[in-house]
């Protein structure tokens, strides 16, 4: 059975709240069946608005959303059959866990026996069997979260939306819940649209990530591609750490270009520059720049150590390199002893392939 790659489809969707400002601009997005897609972006980037339009709580100002090839703009939320996990869980405080889970089934007039079975199954899926008669207030944050997930899944929706569901949990719990949600998704194969502003969460859980900024999808690709090959400087900046140089292209060929900086010149990989004279921002991941490189690299520079921060598994070194005083290096603590002292001059090298010349900031 081939999976529908256009199971959820945003088609030229615009959204404005006040008629003056577009919160979502010309959104085109296809989500395939069974996919775990994350909408990632800073607050105010329009990602939650997209989710609300899909859930039916907001209507697109222009364009149409299709669910399984059917336009859904005129279908009210309760008829869309989309499960949703809310930021603050939105468990009904006056109902027990069982009643919370039974709610979507009862309104669908499911038989009592079937309700019991489905609630049982959903609760065991989130390992909360035996909590049926508890009230939400008697549960910890993590347990409430699981109940919310179970409730969104109990009526077998085709799509489940999650709006920053882990935002209120502490770090350890958040990480274990990430894996748990990921496993649930893998087990039942439901389509998940997940909204978060936490890049770590997005990278570990998703099949694909849509990075939102300013009402637009900046890049839509798999987590590794997003990290390794950001297509513009916003994505490079937003996902992971990033060292940047602002400069001007002085020479360009097919897969390498020369960028003139304020004091110096480097070789870079032309991604969004096409011709000489263009302004650009060159982005290099901290782990791609090596100290005292053994292999031959086409960029070799010398920097001065400004700061050394111990991080346990690695040490972060801040350099003053080619006029950038915020150049960060990550040095694994297993590597042979380097002389990392403040004020020392140090040799740094990287491949032009890893220095991506993107749009200027």
């Amino acid at each position, binding site marked *: 059975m081939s999976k529908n790659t256009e199971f959820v489809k945003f088609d030229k969707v615009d959204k404005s709240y006040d008629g003056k400002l577009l919160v979502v601009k010309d959104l085109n997005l296809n989500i395939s069946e069974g996919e775990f897609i994350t909408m990632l972006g800073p607050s105010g980037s329009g990602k939650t608005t997209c989710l609300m339009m899909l859930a039916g709580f907001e209507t697109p100002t222009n364009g149409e959303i299709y669910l399984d090839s059917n336009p859904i703009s005129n279908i009210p*939320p309760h008829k869309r059959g989309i499960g949703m996990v809310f930021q603050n869980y939105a468990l009904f405080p006056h109902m027990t866990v069982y009643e919370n889970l039974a709610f979507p089934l009862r309104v669908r007039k499911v038989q009592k026996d079937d309700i019991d079975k489905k609630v049982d199954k959903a609760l065991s899926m989130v390992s909360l069997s035996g909590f049926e008669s508890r009230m939400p207030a008697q549960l910890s944050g993590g347990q409430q979260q699981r109940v919310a997930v179970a409730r969104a899944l109990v009526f077998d929706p085709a799509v489940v939306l999650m709006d920053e569901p882990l935002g209120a949990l502490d770090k350890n719990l958040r990480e274990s819940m990430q894996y748990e949600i990921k496993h649930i998704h893998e087990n039942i194969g439901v389509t998940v649209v997940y909204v978060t502003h936490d890049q770590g969460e997005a990278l570990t859980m998703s099949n694909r990530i849509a990075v939102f900024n300013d009402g637009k999808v900046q890049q839509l690709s798999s987590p590794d591609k997003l990290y390794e090959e950001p297509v513009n400087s916003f994505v490079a900046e937003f996902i992971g750490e990033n060292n940047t140089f602002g400069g001007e292209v002085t020479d360009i060929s097919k897969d390498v270009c020369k960028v003139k900086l304020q004091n110096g010149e480097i070789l870079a990989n032309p991604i969004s520059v096409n011709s000489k004279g263009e302004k650009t921002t060159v982005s290099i991941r901290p782990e791609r720049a090596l100290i005292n490189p053994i292999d031959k690299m086409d960029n070799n520079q010398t920097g001065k150590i400004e700061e050394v921060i111990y991080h346990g598994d690695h040490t972060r070194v801040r350099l003053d390199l080619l006029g950038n005083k915020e150049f960060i290096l990550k040095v694994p603590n297993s590597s042979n002893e380097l002389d990392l002292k403040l004020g020392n001059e140090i040799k740094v090298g990287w491949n032009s392939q890893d220095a991506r010349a993107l749009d200027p900031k």
Partner: protein
Amino acid sequence: MSSETNQILTTDGIPLEISLRKAERKNKIKAFLLVVPLLLFLIITYIFPIAEMFTRSIDDKMITNMLPKTFKSMETWNGKDLPPEEVFVSFLEDFKILVDKKEHGKLAQRLNKEKNGFNTIVKKLFRQIKRNKIDESQSIKEQIMKVHKRWRNVEYWQAIKRTAPPYTSAKYLKAMDMYLNEDNKITQVSEDRRIHRILWLRTVEVAFFVTIFCFLMGYPIAHLLATLPMKYSNLLMICVLLPFWTSLLVRTASWMILLQQQGVVNDFFVMIGLVADDNRPEMMYNKVGTYVAMTQILLPFMVLPLYSVMKTISPSLMRAGKSLGGTPFVAFWKVYFPLTIPGIGAGCLLVFILAIGYYITPALVGGASGTLISNQIAYHMKTTLDWSFASAMGLMLLGGVLVIYWLYNKLVGVDNIKLG
């Protein structure tokens, strides 16, 4: 293990409990001192007057003190035939003292309340005594009986005997249109004289419907207040509170202007052709006026508790209800409504209790068919000066409120009330 080793000690060796109590004592005293002014105020202005009202409502000592010897000698009287000579003798003795103190008028008044007709015969007796017509060497009984034929009627003597106890439930019975008859049995007054029961029923009815109307109108307003964006909800809140800032009298008077037969509302009805000009409906000086004015005046007391409860209900709950497949109505009824019950309880209780004792508005716009029990209380306070009767009715009202409170606690639970 001995109990001493079980005791937890502080580092200095003092038992932990004692140490804790010592440490907390100062705070407790401070807290108590803070509430002392209010406590005193409450005792003086609330508990003491209620106690005073209660004693006043059952107090019948006045006559007991007026006729001490009479009541003493009546103890041996069988109460069926005319009393023996000694009762007449002691009655005359008591009466003469009253005449000296010029209190015989009070006696006449009090006895007349017990049984009609006493006024005349007491005054007649007084005149005989003034003229020294009573000869103490002869049978007092015969002479008093000659004063007026009613003194020969055993019913009047029975009536005097009934006033003997220092306490009486007569006022309470009167408030229920009942009285103790000659055989000490609770009897209903004749049908044409039953007014209080109608008033009680009307009071409860008005309070009930005003509560319902306030709820029906207040619930949507409160919901709007809780969900509108701040800039509009503030304005709406001011509109809700505006009546609070206007004097009750002014508000009631403005309703009179609006509702009277030549008033604004009627003019409008005539203008749009809803009613004929010569057939303007009576909207004031009846129950309609009372309902309209009281609902408007008490509305904020419903809206505010509802609002404070609704404000705490996250809008995502309704969304969750809808996204899980509930129609907007189901989401409202199963999710939103149950969460507002504490507010509904508080609002209804507040409005009902306020409405049941409402006075000024019914007095001004109520007319004859719109007056409530509180108007009757005021009437007896100010016009008939029967304060003990007013006290009795006031206490019955208070008792009624307490019963409602108790019922509410049984049904909904007072802990669930949320006023803000």
